[in-house]
């Protein structure tokens, strides 16, 4: 296993700077918010977030913002082209209009999995194609969370969403597999690509620190346990995030210079049930009767994934 040569080895090494003030409109226990909070510690305050419609739109509700940097709400499919416009304009002003380098901004997109996988997917692919110099932060809560938890292309097999409920006819709920956004983005060879988990703060911080020194498309998918949509107590968010990693369901990895490295590897993978059984969205797999075939299928897919690397 290749170890990242990041600056951080212990929690207490992490930057004390808080880039998001407390008291936002986001849900208690939102895993994605924790991920963004730590990411922004690494990126400094000279940034603009171009935001897609979604849960995180509630970060800035007029006339308040919890952010030290700038914020631009766009549309559900438009945060990445908005980032393109800001990047281009700053470059033009620095090159031709005497804007000083100290006025430059880190251009960041913050979008949910619905925007990232579905409505904003094409525009983001285009930005990677153009080599846009930006950071993309996808908080992946595996459904359209802000509208009450409907199926997105990131909803995993056998999760129940409002639009793929578990019924006698469709016992598994969601019957199709989660889109592999990491592999799709990887195919376009962005300069940097990583998955991060709020439960792995050192790994997350090292990745953002590394990305902050690179130029070009830097893509992040942040596992975002969602108390309201997944159905668990907010205080359990960290535990859920940990189980996602420990069961191997959520691989923590990076793609850099043509190589995929799993930066956090579960030593001995826990059975997937340990992750599933704690969430309401998977309750139908255990009650009223246990759906062994479905659970086995989930385990099999996880084993197959890791089998490629073991």
């Amino acid at each position, binding site marked *: 296993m290749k170890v990242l040569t990041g600056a951080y080895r212990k929690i207490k090494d992490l930057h004390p700077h808080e880039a998001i003030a407390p008291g936002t409109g986001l849900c208690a226990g939102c895993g994605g918010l924790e991920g963004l909070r730590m990411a922004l510690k690494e990126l400094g*305050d*000279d940034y*603009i977030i*171009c935001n897609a419609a979604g849960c995180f*739109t*509630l970060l*800035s*509700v*007029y*006339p*308040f*913002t919890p*952010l*030290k*940097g*700038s*914020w*631009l*709400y*766009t*549309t559900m*499919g*438009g945060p*990445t*082209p*908005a*980032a*393109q*416009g*800001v990047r*281009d*304009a*700053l*470059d*033009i*002003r620095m090159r*031709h*209009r005497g*804007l000083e380098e*100290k*006025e*430059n*901004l880190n251009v960041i997109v913050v979008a949910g999995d619905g925007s990232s996988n579905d409505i904003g997917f*094409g*525009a983001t*692919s*285009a930005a990677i*194609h*153009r080599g846009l110099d930006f950071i993309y932060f996808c908080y992946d809560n595996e459904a359209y969370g802000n509208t009450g938890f409907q199926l997105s292309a990131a909803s995993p097999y056998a999760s129940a969403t409002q639009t793929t409920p578990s019924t006698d006819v469709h016992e598994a709920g969601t019957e199709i597999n989660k889109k592999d956004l990491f592999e799709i983005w990887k195919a376009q060879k962005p300069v940097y690509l990583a998955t991060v988990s709020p439960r792995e703060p050192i790994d997350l911080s090292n990745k953002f620190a590394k990305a902050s020194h690179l130029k070009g498309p830097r893509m992040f998918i942040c596992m975002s346990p969602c108390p309201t949509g997944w159905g668990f107590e907010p205080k359990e968010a960290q535990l859920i995030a940990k189980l996602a990693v420990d069961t191997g369901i959520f691989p923590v990895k990076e793609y850099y210079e043509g190589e995929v490295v799993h930066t956090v590897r579960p030593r001995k993978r826990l059975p997937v049930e340990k992750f599933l059984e704690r969430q309401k969205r998977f309750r139908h797999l255990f009650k009223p009767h246990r759906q062994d075939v479905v659970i086995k299928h989930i385990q099999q897919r996880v084993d197959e994934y890791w089998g490629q690397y073991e």
Partner: protein
Amino acid sequence: MKTPKKIMLTGNKAAAWGARMARVEYVPAFPITPQTEIVETLAKWFADGTMQGKFTNMDSEHSMFMAAGSAGATGVRVFTASSSQGILHGLESLYTVTGWRVPMVIVNVSRALATPITLEPDHNDVMSTRDCGLIQLHAETCQEVFDFILMGYKIAEDPEVCLPLLVNLDGFYLSFTREPVLIPGEDEVRNFLPLYTATQPVFQASQPMARASAVFGGVTYTSFKLQQELASRNAEKIFAKTAHDFKDRFGRYYGPVETFHLDDAEYVFVMSNSFATKGKSAVIKLRQQGIKAGLLKLRLFRPFPSEAIASVLAGHAKVAVIDQNLAPGMGGITYPEIVTALYDKKNRPEKILSVIGGLGGKDMDDQDFRTIIETLDKSNMGKPLFLYDEEDAKNFDRLLKIAKLKEVSS
């Protein structure tokens, strides 16, 4: 170019020249017929260093208008162009960026909307943007296209306005028609329209800000919408100021509307864009036959210059509002706006006829204008008048017969 020059330009080239002389710094682009010539021309000028800044090939009009808006919010002078389906595809972004209150100029080269898909012009595309908060200027000639772009930046960038502005020109009839266009010298243009400096805060490290944040509650939402409405209303005043300034410098004056043989006119055609030229030609021919016809051309379409329109139409007996657009089940889209403008005028016209013509580039000939006059003379006009006669029906039938979709009558 140091001194004024008269050169032959298509409507599209005139638009590109407008952007060039305005010293536009940023063009996000996406191709669509019949607009493509504009962005191709600009791409070349950015590539060879004639224009300074950046040309970015975007992935859709939705993305293009979004990038245009965010670049405007970051302090550069932005230009872009689209047409037809592209306008519809980008409409969400257009509503968004007008709310951002960023100045820019957008050219729409009018082309009819699917279905059926076609290339030739009518105005349903630009009318779809009617309510999104853009300032709109509609051009009849290539010179107007060029001049409106220069004036457009001046209006859009005025601190009392700060809104995107759209210049409309007709596909094919104007986009691909060459006309002589006077291009002023660079210094003259610079005196009228200096290099862009944003008057509102823009994105840069020293001035962090949250823009376009979500609002809760109707009061906050309405406060923002009211500001947008007031800004748009201001644009009528700023248009007038800009038009006078433009005349002083370049000798061409543009009122919010243009009148043609209107003073003693008994019949008035209300038209816009390139087909107004056909209307003017018809007016001349009708007058040769002793029919007192005249024409009112709409130029400033948003904000809607109700008073300017009503004051020139009042006192004329018969008015035909010719819409090159169709709201199925209702009729012409500008018709109710003209009627509303006239409602409280004491000497408003006796008759105001809604005419639908020129859809999908369908020509309007002298017979069409005579039909309008005849309809205005009827005691019961029926409405709206759809310019589609027996000859047109026969032509459509002929097509079906060629394809053997209809029996050929012996």
